[in-house]
């Protein structure tokens, strides 16, 4: 039996019923990783010993009749900007190449309590800044559907590891689409939760007012189970709200009013738009009411997003001085400022670009012109969404306006690269939840469907995803 092909819920069920052991499952996954990693490069670190040790402890608990948790034995990859105690957390950067956190992120502790096994740390764009996972010191991750193409980013390792059957589920972080974009490009499901639903304690900061940790998985049931494990208040993250949701992945009886955002489709590749309209037809046949709506301020969303993200990045990344969390470089012969500037030249190209633009927009005389206006656009966007959600349960469009593109195609043109985030940044600016679900294929390449809901309406989003999943059969993992 090829255990590595099982979804998370099948794994937990099989282990609890003693149809196979957690150790057998993990061993098979490690062999799978050894086979496919030379092609995909989804991992920065593989936790062989720790994963096998945890699997054995779960098997013992099952044998002894002790409770093992809803995700018993399920292998999860964790984006390498989320701390796992005792395991290197590099953010795919030279600046953190030796950093071993002395604590685990809240989400990691909660997954561990639910019985999940961290099988490895997933590749990303350096400090989560990118759309392709090409900006990694560890080398680019490749799209498992076509290894000459990008897997999306910045959580490219997370989505690629799930699609490549190297793990069942993954944790990524989504600042402007970083879970949904690679989920779309790799034909898996990715969620960006409502701001304040999931703790970010232990996530290396990039842009605090935008980012959330979210899961990637191959089925709605799998990502729902992860959400149930990780969501809820945390005393170590003051931005979390006092709640503990319990989501369901059952196919719902209710039908939805869905607004198709015309601005998301007007600039999209016609092949991508075709898949979205086809999905709308499928949902309409199921009894949903789909109609076109307008979200006018989308035009300014990207400028607002990049202003805020880069401003927050330039502030957050000021902490890297190589005295704390550093790499080996002697300070002999340097004074403070020259040493600080020298070591920080080791940030990668995209990170340096964002820090510098962030410093520019926050400079004296420019604050009102850029940052303040960006925050005002954010207000308008929130108001527009609020008004649409009075009429519609969900808003729909493509997750990405284009198909997965060739490696290196946009790497030398930052604006071209930024423009592809147009559909995903809206949810981050507004703090609302969004999900990318596999919508179909065009020329063998995946197209993701994005559903957005009002704040804390994750259940509505999951319900619609379950309904769509129940009547479509979009392939989740390629032959590798």
């Amino acid at each position, binding site marked *: 039996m090829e255990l590595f092909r099982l979804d998370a819920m099948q794994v937990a069920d099989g282990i609890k019923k003693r149809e196979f052991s957690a150790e057998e499952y993990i061993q098979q996954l490690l062999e799978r990783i050894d086979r496919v990693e030379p092609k995909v490069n989804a991992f920065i670190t593989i936790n062989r010993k720790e994963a096998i040790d945890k699997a054995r402890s779960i098997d013992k608990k099952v044998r002894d009749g002790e409770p093992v948790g809803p995700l018993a034995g399920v292998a999860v990859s964790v984006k390498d900007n989320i701390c796992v105690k*005792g395991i290197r957390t590099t953010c795919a950067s030279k600046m*953190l190449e030796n*950093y*071993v*956190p*002395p604590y685990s992120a809240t989400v990691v502790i909660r997954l561990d309590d639910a019985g999940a096994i961290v099988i490895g740390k997933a590749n990303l764009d350096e400090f989560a800044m990118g759309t392709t996972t090409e900006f990694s010191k560890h080398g680019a991750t490749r799209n498992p559907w076509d290894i000459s193409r990008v897997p999306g980013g910045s959580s490219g390792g997370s989505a690629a590891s799930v699609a490549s059957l190297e793990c069942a589920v993954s944790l990524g972080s989504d600042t402007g689409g970083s879970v949904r974009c690679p989920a779309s490009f790799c034909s898996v499901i990715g969620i960006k939760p409502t701001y*304040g639903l999931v703790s970010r304690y232990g996530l290396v900061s990039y842009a605090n007012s935008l980012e959330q940790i979210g899961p990637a998985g191959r089925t709605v049931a799998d990502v729902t189970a992860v959400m149930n494990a990780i969501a809820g*208040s*945390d*005393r*170590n*993250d*003051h*931005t*979390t*709200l*006092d709640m503990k949701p319990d989501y369901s992945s059952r196919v719902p009886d209710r039908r939805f009013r869905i607004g198709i955002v015309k601005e998301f489709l007007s600039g999209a590749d016609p092949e991508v738009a075709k898949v979205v309209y086809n999905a709308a037809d499928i949902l309409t046949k199921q009894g949903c009411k789909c109609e076109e709506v307008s979200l006018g301020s989308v*035009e*300014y969303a990207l*400028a*607002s997003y990049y202003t805020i993200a880069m401003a927050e990045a*330039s502030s957050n990344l*000021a902490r890297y*001085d190589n*005295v*704390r*969390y*550093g790499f*080996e470089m002697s*300070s002999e012969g*340097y*004074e*403070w400022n*020259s*040493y600080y*500037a020298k070591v*920080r*030249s080791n940030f990668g190209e995209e990170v*340096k*670009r964002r*820090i*510098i*633009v*962030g*410093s*520019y*927009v926050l*400079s004296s005389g420019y604050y009102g*012109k*850029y940052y*303040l*206006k960006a*925050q*005002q656009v*954010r*207000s*308008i966007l929130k108001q527009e969404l609020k008004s649409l959600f009075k009429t519609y349960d969900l808003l729909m469009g493509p997750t990405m306006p284009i198909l997965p593109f060739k490696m290196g195609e946009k790497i030398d043109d*930052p*604006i071209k690269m*930024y423009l592809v985030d147009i559909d995903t940044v809206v949810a981050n600016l507004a703090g609302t939840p969004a999900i990318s679900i596999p919508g179909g294929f065009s020329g063998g390449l995946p197209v993701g469907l994005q559903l957005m809901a009002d704040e804390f309406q994750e259940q509505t989003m999951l319900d619609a995803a379950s309904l769509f999943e129940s009547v479509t059969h979009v392939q989740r993992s390629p032959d590798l």
Partner: protein
Amino acid sequence: MAVTKDQVKHLGWLSRIELSDDELALYAGQIETIIKYLDKLDTVPLQEVKPVVASKKFSDLRDDVAVEFEADPLGTSYRKEGFVKGPRMV
């Protein structure tokens, strides 16, 4: 507005990032294009709009109590007689 190599060098200094001549040349052009794109914000009539503020009731702040970690929380190798050794200030 044109972004010059000197401006990028100054921004690099403000950000404490040493940039090579090649990087200055590369970034000057790219940052000018990025800023031009961000100038789009200037075309939005926003005088009456307030910037976004959080309206949610976030969780209470935890007590400010020091937490002992088993391992080194600073992740630094620059230790000397119980102190972290940084570069000289002048």
